[in-house]
């Protein structure tokens, strides 16, 4: 049987090292197969996350030969096996053990984002009508499997550690899916500018490159959101128009009451 060497990072926040493991390989194997086999036969206590092994749950994120990837969707046949395959944890999050990182920050961020608020139902039976072409974009964003690879590779988080000021590409896409949802009535533009920190993104598109779901994070999500922020806060004509409209709206309300 052919074999390959995997250099896997072992250790915790206090320190650690790469250790070499040699394992047999067969046709069609992915990195997760090899790591699972190493765990079952040589290192029972090797820590990492995985669930579906089908690219659907987004649990097995790691950096393979330096590239942020899902272990379950990385074929060994696409890697140069004449040298060891390095597998290490995501860098943008605090390390727990081996390949396992603490991603709880992502869950706290999501909770801060204003939730979906639908308009009143369109039909008497309480249902809505939406055209497929009006939801295509939102469905693209909702393909996200929350693997957090885009967060891992984003300079603002990875290199500058600005987790308190910037929600990262995953949650900008989450906001985009809400803002472009045909039924949603909530307004998150002010938060995008301030609390969510969209201005920190300088559209290097690294997030788009690593997305295993091929979501056009930057072009279809972040840039249109940036335009909405600009329209609201930096467009003098828009600002003047809204002032006028707000005034006339409130006049109308007064007249009605």
């Amino acid at each position, binding site marked *: 049987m052919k074999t390959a060497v995997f250099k896997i990072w072992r250790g915790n926040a206090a320190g650690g090292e790469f250790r070499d493991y040699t394992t047999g390989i067969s046709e069609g194997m992915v990195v997760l197969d090899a790591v699972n086999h190493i765990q079952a036969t040589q290192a*029972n*206590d090797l820590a990492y996350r995985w*669930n*579906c092994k089908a690219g659907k749950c*987004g649990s097995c994120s790691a950096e393979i030969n330096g590239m942020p990837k899902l272990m379950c969707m990385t074929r060994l046949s696409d890697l140069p096996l004449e040298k060891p395959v390095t597998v290490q944890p995501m860098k943008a999050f605090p390390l*727990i053990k081996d390949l396992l990182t603490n991603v709880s920050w992502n869950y706290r961020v999501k909770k801060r984002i204003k939730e*979906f608020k639908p308009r009143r139902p369109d039909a008497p039976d309480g249902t809505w009508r939406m055209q497929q072409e009006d939801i295509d974009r939102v469905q693209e964003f909702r393909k996200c*499997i*929350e693997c957090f690879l885009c967060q891992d590779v984003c300079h603002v988080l990875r290199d500058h550690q600005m987790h308190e000021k910037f929600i990262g590409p995953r949650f900008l896409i989450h906001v985009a899916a809400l803002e472009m949802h045909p039924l949603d009535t909530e307004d998150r533009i002010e938060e995008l500018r301030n609390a969510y920190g969209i201005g920190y993104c300088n559209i290097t598109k690294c997030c788009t490159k690593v997305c295993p779901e091929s979501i056009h994070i930057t072009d279809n999500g972040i840039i249109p959101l940036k335009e909405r922020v600009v329209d609201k806060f930096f467009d003098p004509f828009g600002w003047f128009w809204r002032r006028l409209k707000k005034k006339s709206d409130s006049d109308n309300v007064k007249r009605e009451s």
Partner: protein
Amino acid sequence: MPEYNIFQYDVLIIGSGGAGLRAAIEASGAGVSVGMVCKCLLGKAHTVMAEGGIAAALANVDDRDNWKVHFADTMRGGQYVNNWRMAELHAKEAPARVRELEAWGAVFDRTVDGRILQRNFGGHKYPRLAHVGDRTGLEMIRTLQDHGIHQGIDVHMEICITDLLKNGPRVVGALGYDRERGHFKIFQAKAVVLATGGIGKAYKITSNSWDCTGDGHSLAYHAGAALIDMEYVQFHPTGMVWPPSVAGMLVTEGVRGEGGILTNADGKRFMFDFIPDNYKAQTADNEEEGWRYTQGDKNARRPPELLTRDHVARCIVREIKEGRGTPHGGVYLDISWIKKKLSNAEEHIKRKLPSMHHQFKTLGDIDITSEPMEVGPTTHYIMGGVHVDADTQMSDVPGLFAAGECAAGINGANRLGGNSLSDLIVFGKRAGEFAAKFAKENSHGKIDNEMVDRRAREALKPFENSQGENPYSVQRDLQEVMQHNVGIVRDESEMCSALDHLKTFWERCAHVGVTGNRDFNPGWHTALDLKNLLTVSEAITRAALERKESRGAQFREDYPEKDERLAKVNTVIRKGENGTMQVQLEPLPEMPEYLKEVIEENR
């Protein structure tokens, strides 16, 4: 002595897939405090892998559909050993639960007039599955998750529950450990909802995640609850067979719903060869009619590829056994042939089945728009589980509820595709509602600290035995035995031999050892999961031995026919006084006249 963190909730939910999340949302909405523990991270539970859709008689695509037809389809698919009341509630309430998902932000594919689109699926008379391409489970879990995090639910991620805690007959909480640090936690609760999903990891070839180890089944059994229908394990007809590393990975029934056909190595479309009598009237007898059905022709009958999963899986096994299989031991599933019928076939396939396209391209070097897939049966789902009251989802143990795959009744001897996601939200809601009600009517029970200490010490035993056997070896051997001896084709001698093996596995399980410490140690976690896997494996084997007939998902070579005497009983598994597993046959609840009429009307 171990130390414990103690948490106190009115309602504790164990499991964070569709059923657990829906139960948590409902209980929280009823004004009680709710804690939810997840074995993995939130939003990663096995629901995320569901592909084809949610069955609900919305009648958006075919206005002849209604709850009665859905009910009759579900009962026929389950060979009439379903719990009729659960099937009735499910068919009636699924549409409201699906619309509720839309109100919480789910974005389903649309009909031309802007309503929720529905697709064809095996055993459903009309197009009934609300869906989002072939990633419906992701849409559902994300919707419930994103709604649920704003409902005041306490979420504990990466916690495994090892024991339910009782006070007299009643459940009063649960003991578990956090995977990250290996610390024990006591969750005191007035009511507990099990929503732990399936048992797929008892088998070698499975579509299930590592964490589908039958925890809820096992916890309930050891706490004194009855399990029913454990012999009914669903082998999904279409799992990937090549390359070996992805064997068992699911290929959605949606492929056949969109017109995909099954052929053998001779190129023959073999599903027309044998159509069961009770489906003859509603199944196409020629290829042209089958195609017209998949394209929405209301006068056409469905192609035989869309017969129920138990039947299709057995036909595939027959083709392979009789030497007409593919080089890698499967059959062909071909969707690319529709280019003969549709000018934009490639685009259409990518749009309707994006995950399948991606999965085969990335993992199998196959482009499904231009070549057939190789598929074979894979362990997918268990119809059996905790016996519950149909309306409230409470088990035989007061205060202990169950919903979703770990509960039983709705599916009978075979589940229809799409009925699982609807099961999760219909009965997840009910479990949450009635658990909250139970919690309001009862106070906290006393936790038996001595028992907690004893259980915690037992859980730590593998650390005292670092020279003991590797737990992964026991797990692997168990999976081999279940795969070969209690799989899709069964007989008495093989299953008796499986019971002998199980006895040795229990002994080996008692002597496994782990290395390293308690910090996120998967070897230790695997050692503890073994007890659950062994419990469900034994229950499946004993129930399958007791049912001396072939019905639905249970096929016995030594009893290949249905036995009318067994048509009106469930197998029931309970833990005996002396700690051994007892199995017996008990009568099904009698179906009321008005439902018998519904079934007759839909013959």
